[in-house]
Each structure stands twice: as C-alpha cells, then as structure tokens.
C-alpha cells in the first residue's frame, strides 16, 4: 500500500461571480433592456458554468490557484485560513462534490467526507430510520450499519428516543446522533470541515477524543477548522491557505502562529511602539504603549529567557488616583494569561496623580512564557473603573538558543503557554 494517502497536483478552481448590472437612465434604455431580457438572462445563466479556455475577465474568480501538497498515511493535517481562503472548496474537490477546473488529485483508500452534520436527515423519520439513511449517504453499507447500530445509539446517548421522529429532538440530541453516525465511519481517509462548531463543550470534547482515536488507528485526517485550539490539539502538521494558494505548510504550532500573526499582526505592525492621539475630553488617556526588552530597548522581538517590560504612558488631565493596568494574552486571544495593576505594587494611598504625563512600566519575568506572539490590553483606571483602554503592540518571544543565534522557531517540542524549567524530585519507595 502506498505511503501517500492524498496527493494534490496543481489543483485550481474558478467561478464566475456576478458583476454590477448595467443601470439605464433613460426610459427607452430600460424598456429595450427589459425586452431583451430573456436573451441576456439565458446568456447569464449559461455563463455561470461555461468558460472558454484561458479566458480572463473581470467576473472570474479563482477560489483555488495551483495548489499542490502531499499527505502521508496516518497523518492528521489541519487546514486553516481566513473565511473565503479556499479551504472548503479544496475539501469539496477532494470529496468529489465539485470538479477542479484543472489539475489532478489522487486519494489512496476509502474516503468519507464530513462537511455537515446530519446530511440527509429527514425530520419526519425516527432516529433509527435516520441512522440508516444518513449512514448510507455517508458511504456505509446496510450490513455495516446493522453491525454498528448498537454502538452508534450508545455513543449518541439518545437510546430512549431512537424511535421518535427526529424533529422532536433537541438540537443537542440531533447533533449528537448525527455525529455519532459519522464517528463510526471507518474510512482510510477522513475529510472534516468545521463540523465541530456545533454542540456544547462536552460534545465537542467527545468529538475531539473520538477523532484522536480515529487517528491512532492509522487513518489519515484532513481537518478544516477555525478553532485553533482543536487544530493545535489534534493535528501534527497544518497547511495555511491564503487567497486560494498555499501560504505555508509545516509543523502545526508554527502554522497557527503564522496565521495569528497574519490575522492580528496587521493591527500592530509597529516594532514595539504605538502612539495614540491626544484626548482632551478624557480625564486621563493613554498616549503611547511600548514594549521593552531587559535592557530597556524598544523592540517587538524578545528573548524568551529574559524579562520584558510593557510601558504605558498616560496623560492625566484631572488629578486623581489614576493607575495603569495590563491584561496579557496570546495574540489570537485564545488564552488570557493574566491581569496586573499598578496598585498591586504601590499602595493606593500613594497613588495620587497630578496633571501631567506618567510612564508606568510592568515587568514580566523571563523564562516563563513559551515562545510565541502576544499582546496586552493596557488601561488607565481609577478605583477599578477604566478611563481609557488601548491595545499594546504585539510582540514575539523567541528562542535564542544556547548559541545565541536568532531563531524564529517555536519551541515545538514543548506545547503549552508556559515554558519553565520546574524541579522534579524522586526517590525509591
């Protein structure tokens, strides 16, 4: 059996999108265009799906453009990218739901696609009847469903209601039953498209665990998702798709990091400083935020093992007990790391600020946070109430390594927000 499960070679897919309609400003103009409409309508409809070769007109859009990659058997690969990047189109082509415009893909093994939960479910039919219906739609044979029937019902937790029409099910039950059927597919290659977005946390966990199991059985999984947490948890590698093309592929943490930077980094492409405009009507406002390294140099790239500082400069217009605060989180905002306020270091009694500009620096110790991209929301507050709140520049913690070489790689052997050396003790008992 070949080691390659999926091989994609120069796949492209184009669509026609609607162009702005011609608007007439004379009555004769509108009348003649109304009379001609059956002809132009026919052309328009026919146009939707016909292209002459090498045509490049305004209304053509390439959803995928020359995409190539290989996936080995047993790999779980995440596909991430913005909405509209082309991920679902890629999955549809690999699922044979739509045809590529050019290029070729080969899949070795049985394929099952999960692009939607509950495909084909009929509300008037019972759970039992829908299991057979949905199961065969997904590609199982009747005797296979007979064999797995009890397991499927068990996993879904709807045993009592299995003979009630599914339109009576709660949305949770519906989704659990639908996923349970899909979870018992045994394909060599599984293509999954963001179906885990539905359901409560307990259910999502169950799904992720089941997909974990599926992967351990040596099956290949292509997983499209917007949930970086799930992608990071399940996948060993990932492909980032941007505007119909592969931007990068590789280790999953690297790709997630790159994606976050591309999505959020643009807000703060600032090399360590952001200045904010003056705000005379506020009692106090933030004028600038800076990221400093352990030697007080302004920078956005920091050594993971050394401390760094976040400096909040703020103006006080009306004297009062104003103080700075900062909430530090990962750049994709999936993890909020901590919140810290000046008043934890200085006694509230002594925080009396007169009119003028202040610079408050927060120091974060080194060697604690893992490599990656972060940012902070900084604020100026009084008695717990915020008077101004602004984002800091984004910054990156980097592993300089023992040799002192500049390496923008994530410590991929260590997953997790923290990367600290902790002490272990051991004795024979």
């Amino acid at each position, binding site marked *: 059996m070949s080691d390659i499960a999926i091989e994609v070679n120069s796949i492209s897919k184009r669509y026609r999108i609607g162009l702005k309609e011609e608007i007439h400003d004379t009555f004769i103009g509108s009348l003649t265009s109304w009379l001609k409409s059956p002809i132009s309508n026919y052309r328009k409809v026919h146009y939707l799906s016909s292209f002459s070769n090498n045509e490049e007109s305004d209304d053509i859009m390439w959803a995928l453009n020359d995409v190539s990659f290989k996936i080995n058997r047993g790999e779980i690969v995440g596909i991430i990218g913005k909405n509209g990047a082309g991920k679902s189109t890629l999955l549809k082509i690999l699922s044979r*739901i739509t045809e590529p415009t050019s290029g070729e893909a*080969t899949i070795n093994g049985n394929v099952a696609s999960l692009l939607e939960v509950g495909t084909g479910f009929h509300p008037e039919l019972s759970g039992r009847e829908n299991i057979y*219906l949905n199961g065969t739609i997904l590609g199982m044979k009747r005797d296979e469903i007979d064999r797995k029937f009890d397991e499927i019902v068990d996993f879904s937790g709807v045993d009592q209601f299995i003979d009630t029409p599914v339109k009576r099910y709660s949305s949770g039950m519906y989704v659990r039953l639908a996923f349970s059927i899909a979870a018992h597919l045994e394909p060599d290659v599984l293509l999954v498209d963001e179906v885990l977005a539905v359901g409560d946390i307990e259910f999502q966990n169950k799904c992720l665990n089941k997909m974990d199991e599926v992967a351990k059985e040596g099956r290949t999984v292509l997983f499209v998702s917007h949930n970086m947490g799930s992608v990071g948890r399940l996948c060993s590698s990932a492909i980032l798709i941007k505007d119909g093309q592969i931007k990068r592929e590789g280790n999953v943490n690297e790709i997630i990091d790159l994606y976050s930077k591309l999505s959020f980094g643009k807000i703060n492409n600032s090399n360590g400083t952001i200045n904010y405009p003056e705000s005379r009507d506020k009692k106090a406002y933030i004028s600038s935020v800076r990221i400093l390294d352990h030697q007080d140099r302004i920078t956005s790239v920091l050594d993971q093992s050394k401390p760094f500082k976040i400096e909040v400069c703020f103006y006080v217009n009306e004297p009062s007990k104003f103080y700075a605060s900062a909430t530090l989180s990962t750049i994709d905002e999936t993890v909020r790391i901590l919140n810290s306020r000046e008043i934890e270091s200085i006694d509230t009694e002594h925080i009396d600020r007169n009119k003028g500009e202040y610079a408050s620096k927060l120091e974060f110790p080194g060697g604690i946070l893992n490599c990656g991209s972060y940012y902070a929301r900084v604020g100026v507050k009084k008695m717990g109430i915020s008077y101004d709140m602004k984002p800091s520049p984004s910054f990156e913690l980097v592993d300089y390594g023992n040799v002192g070489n500049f390496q923008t790689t994530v410590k991929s052997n260590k997953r997790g927000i923290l990367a600290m050396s902790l002490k272990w003790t051991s004795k024979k008992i």
Partner: protein
Amino acid sequence: MSSISESLTPTIVIKPKSGWQLIDWKELIEYRDLFYFLIKRDVLAIYKQTVLGFTWAIIRPVFSMIVFSVVFGGLAKIPSDGIPYPIFSYVALIPWTYFAAAMNTSTQSLISGKGIFTKVYFPRLIIPLIPVLSKLVDFAIAFVILFGLMAWYGISPTKNLIFLPVLILMMMLTASGIGMWLSAMAIQYRDIPHGVGFLSQMLMYAAPVVWPLSLLEDKFGESVSLAYGIYPMVGVIEGFRSALLGHNPMPWVLIGIGALSAIVLFISGALYFKSKERIFVDVA
C-alpha cells in the same frame, strides 16, 4: 466505496472531466443500499403525520375519475369505446397519475435534494430516479380500487394481463427519461419548475386519458394514430385498457413505437444529465 478485500485499496483520481460521459453501472450497483434508503425515505415521509395516509394514493385517481365521468362522459358525451366511462377513464388514470407524479417530482428532485448532493458524494443519477421508483407504491395502491371497480362492472381481465410489466417498464423508462432531462435543466434554468406542472396538464390532454384513441383514428386515419404512438404514454394507456378490459386487441404497433421512443428518451436523458452533472453543485 468499500474495498473488496483487505489487500485491495481503492484509488480515486480526481480531475476535470471532458466530453460525453457514460453511465457507470458498477458504481450505481455499489450504491444500491443508498438508493434503497432514499426511496424508502420518500415513501415513508410523504404520509407521516397525515390522517388519511396512504389513502391519498387512492383519492387522486378516484376523484379525477368522478369529475371526468361527470364532465367528459356525462356532459360532453365523449365516446368510450363501448365501455362505461368511469372505468374507461380509471384504467387510464392509474398509469397516468403515476407518470405525472414521477415526472413532476423527478424534475424538482435536484433542486429539492441539493441539501445532500452538495455535501456528500454519490452518483447524482440516483436522484431523479428515486421518484420513478417511489411513486410505484402509490401506483400499486391505486390498482386495488381497480379490481373493485372491475368486479362492480362485471368485467374480467384478459390473458394479456401478463404483458402489463412491459407497459409498466415503458412508463418507468419514459418518466425516467423526461425526469433526467428536466431535472438537469431545472437546476440550471429555474423556468423549468414553473412550467412543468403546466406541461403535465397539457400532456394529459394530449394522451388518450379522457378520450379514446379511436377518435383520432376515425378523424385522421390509422397511420396518423399509429404515428401518435411516438408519445409513449399512448401505447401504455391503450395497452392497459386492452389488457384489463378486453374491448380491443392489444395495440402492439403502438406499444412498439412507444417503447422505442421511451428508450430514446431514457438514453438521451441520461447522456444529457451526465454531461451537465459536473456543474450542478456550482449552479445549485
């Protein structure tokens, strides 16, 4: 899509198709379980939560028969080949009701079924063929009333009854052919669903449902009425009447012409459907 043995893994190659595609019979057979459950779904779901349930399959032809008997048989005094008008029309209504229902539902099938074929792969050709099979259930139920009617009028069926399956096959082929043509066209050009209900009305009057083919023969001569056999339902309906009521000999020439026509419809419909299949998802 499952492998036949452990050592054999299927390899799927995905690339753009061009030119005419033939029907992949092997694939259709592989998906027979899906075919079965989709048909079952259609049959069961239609009558769930209705009070009358499957009796609807009887109400349609029976009520049509009553109205036609009053209007065409009674008022307009259309001849009925010497048979009482009610049963004359009912025998035609059984295959006609099936045909109209199968054709209408089949035409809509791609549009109403887009929920499944845009989300999962299976041979699309199954979709317009499902109503062709599921409506046979209604057809069978309507037959029950027929035997009651025949007993009432004291008519017994002829031995040509054994040819009924041929006629049934003909009507299924016609319905499938038209269904494949129209469903593929309907998903591209949404005019079609608007017109198909109207079309089936017109087709009913064009077929000898409420009038006997002998009228055409009397007016235009035998050859015209034989040529009319190109419309397959003519052969089906007159064949049904002859086999069940025995008033005329079996119209073999009509049936022969109609059968050829049905086969042409089926093959051309399948070819058109397959040629347009690749764009269904993109225009759905």
